[in-house]
């Protein structure tokens, strides 16, 4: 069964702290995508990782991909309240760009 597992599913952080969200996937994929979703809103693309060792950074977020370990991480540096959202990773191994999504990590950053 093709699956994507994120952990933790819920994360409560204090502002200024660092944390990492983990995304394990079951395929041999070298394509991994990260999205953000605010409550009641659509999904926004954050990162596209297309090869082993790929690292992308945007502001306080950094994503990486280790295809040998079938693991992607989303690292949050010095969290701020505006980062509160649900973060999804998705495996792009299937044909025609079909994505397998994880269940999401709901992040809450508190003052």
């Amino acid at each position, binding site marked *: 069964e093709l699956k994507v597992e994120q952990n933790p599913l819920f994360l409560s952080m204090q502002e200024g702290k660092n944390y990492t969200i983990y995304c394990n996937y079951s395929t041999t994929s070298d394509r991994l*995508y990260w999205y953000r979703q605010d409550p009641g809103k659509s999904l926004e693309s954050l990162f*596209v990782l297309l090869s082993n060792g790929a690292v992308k950074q945007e502001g306080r977020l950094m994503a990486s991909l280790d295809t040998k370990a079938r693991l992607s991480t989303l690292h949050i540096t010095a969290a701020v309240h505006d980062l509160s959202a649900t973060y999804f990773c998705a495996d792009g191994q299937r044909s025609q760009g079909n994505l397998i*999504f994880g269940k999401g990590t709901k992040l809450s950053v508190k003052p």
Partner: protein
Amino acid sequence: DAGITQSPRHKVTETGTPVTLRCHQTENHRYMYWYRQDPGHGLRLIHYSYGVKDTDKGEVSDGYSVSRSKTEDFLLTLESATSSQTSVYFCAISGSSVETQYFGPGTRLLVL
């Protein structure tokens, strides 16, 4: 923002009635996808299209059909709505099978 609209944005219907959701894009992207989002399940692919009149099933396609007669429009039809199809439906587009997908605003469907 990618030019994607979905209509209607909200709909309440009764069990057994047909429902059609529309996804319209202005980006001329080849790939279009329909997902449903339910608490505890993340997003699950219903159907997708890789070109005009080229469609295929996703992982939760039972009870749904699609059509794509023009590049810009992708229709999702619930032939006979059931309460289990109450969900938020998202359309997504992509220029290739590798590029990221851009999501529409979503349609909230309640089947009573």
